[in-house]
């Protein structure tokens, strides 16, 4: 049943021009950065060949691709997630799902899975770029895997936040603004390194809390090729927390509080 809803969401995404535009822009922006990085790399190659333990092509070209992708996703995901609930509310189609023999949890998980499948597709297409480097050299597959896992987790956390924003309103644009705004605030938390500051003061619980709420911070170890289970758990916790909030929000809508 979750898959039925996921398939429906995926179909709805592809039926809207928005998804295609977002996919296109993501490709354009990321591939521009990718090509520029390749140019830089080719220029630097003679120097790198002389340096012992120089960073490889994966670290110099592939890693920045995923960093760019993370920034693009920050804009793209709230736009893609905004319609999940808000549009169903606006078009009054939510009734079809609520009247069907489905639990709210199934509806939420189905919709989230549908959005994630779309985002995985976007990440998959982006991954073709670093893979194309195999034509002229070798890749560090360990680093690439860690970048991929990190990107998927990061995107999932963005999607969960955007999804919850969508459950708050019946206006998709408002949902996108709330989602984007919340993610931006989380980005600021990374900038001031609030978690580290709190940890220095010995407030570990508060530090962990802030750590969970700063997804980009948790993406860093993955970008450096390190599978950090603490960061992975933090990202997953963010996803679970916001999905739970979404379920509760939809239940509350039924109660009409």
């Amino acid at each position: 049943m979750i898959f039925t809803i996921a398939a429906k969401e995926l179909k709805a995404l592809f039926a809207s021009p928005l998804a295609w535009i977002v996919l296109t822009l993501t490709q354009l922006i990321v591939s521009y950065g990718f090509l520029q990085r390749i140019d830089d790399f080719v220029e630097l190659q003679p120097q790198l060949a002389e340096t012992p333990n120089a960073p490889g092509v994966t670290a110099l070209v592939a890693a920045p691709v995923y960093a760019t992708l993370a920034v693009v996703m920050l804009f793209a995901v709230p736009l893609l997630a905004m319609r999940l609930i808000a549009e169903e509310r606006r078009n009054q189609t939510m009734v079809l799902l609520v009247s069907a023999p489905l639990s709210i949890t199934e509806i939420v998980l189905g919709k989230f899975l549908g959005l994630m499948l779309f985002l995985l597709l976007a990440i998959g297409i982006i991954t073709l770029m670093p893979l194309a480097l195999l034509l002229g050299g070798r890749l560090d597959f360990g680093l690439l895997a860690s970048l991929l896992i990190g990107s998927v987790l990061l995107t999932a956390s963005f999607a969960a936040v955007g999804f919850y924003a969508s459950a708050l309103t019946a206006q998709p644009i408002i949902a996108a603004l709330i989602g984007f705004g919340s993610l931006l605030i989380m980005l600021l938390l990374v900038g001031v390194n609030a978690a580290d500051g709190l940890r220095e003061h010995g407030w570990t619980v508060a530090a962990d809390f802030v750590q969970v709420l700063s997804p980009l911070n948790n993406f860093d170890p993955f970008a450096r090729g390190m599978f950090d289970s603490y960061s992975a758990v933090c990202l997953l916790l963010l996803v679970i927390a916001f999905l739970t909030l979404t379920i509760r929000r939809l239940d509350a809508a039924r109660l009409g509080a």
Partner: protein
Amino acid sequence: MNAVKLVYFSLHRGRASNSRGAWQADDSPIMTASSSDITVSAQGLSRSFGARRAVDAVSLELRRGEILGLLGPNGAGKTTTMQMLTGNLAPSGGGVSICGIDLLEQPTAAKAHLGYLPEHPPLYRELTVREYLDLAARLHRVARPRRGTAVAEAIERCGLAEVTSRLIGALSKGYQQRVGIAQAIVHSPDVVILDEPTVGLDPNQIRDIRGLIRELGDSHSVILSTHILPEVESVCDRVQIMHHGSTVFSDTITGLRQFHAGRRVLLGLRRPPQLSALATIPGVARAEEVSANLFRINFANGGDPTDTLVRRAVDDDWGLTQLTPAQTSLEDVFTHLTQTEDA
């Protein structure tokens, strides 16, 4: 309001079924059906939005093969009641069971027996009719082998054969409404709940949809809400009138007709006496002046003053011109119950 209730109470030989003043026929043959045939049972449903009480202790019961018309002016609480019956809105008080399954405790199991067409049909404009009905069938857990036939059947029953591969967004309002109905019956649920199913349709389509609803009533239980009174009289087996969130009338259509036939007469007199003279005749509950020479006589409970009226008309030389049983239509009942209080 009390006065109105009294009139209907006196007209009705049945007992008041609950303290809120809803009258239920106790002599209807359907009442004797076994309880296993009860498909919808709601007790004391209430719902408040803030301080406003939208629905106040509404009870209803429906058996297999019955069509219940839910009537009421705008804002009477019909839609809210239907939302509660379908699990779209949690009641603040009371309970609902669908085919014996408690909707609040086992929502998914109970919803499997339900088909619901809300006020605005929940249509995905970007899907074709067939895709949409297939999705509705999947969501209602129609098993894969039966899904194709279920969708084809719904398409056929709702007259959608010509538009199966068109996008729903490109269909006319009438066809969209039909797709909405098809969505509610695709999984052949035991209970079909339709909120104003004929709104926005042209007269031919209305006739078709009414035919469809009657057909549904053979095998399913149907609840429909409407403000179109002839619709209720032509389609429904039972009628429940709501006003300000509570049930003010509930009876079978046949009961309603039988019950009102002969309970009133129109009396035409060339030389009428004082109105009070008519009102004091034994067996007359109330006399109203329709025009200078025409009066409406309401009978008192159990009384039949027709003989007396004729005798007095002759004895006192009133010049009797007309004595006809006045038809009490559903419209009279409706207007009476839902307007007196506001006046």
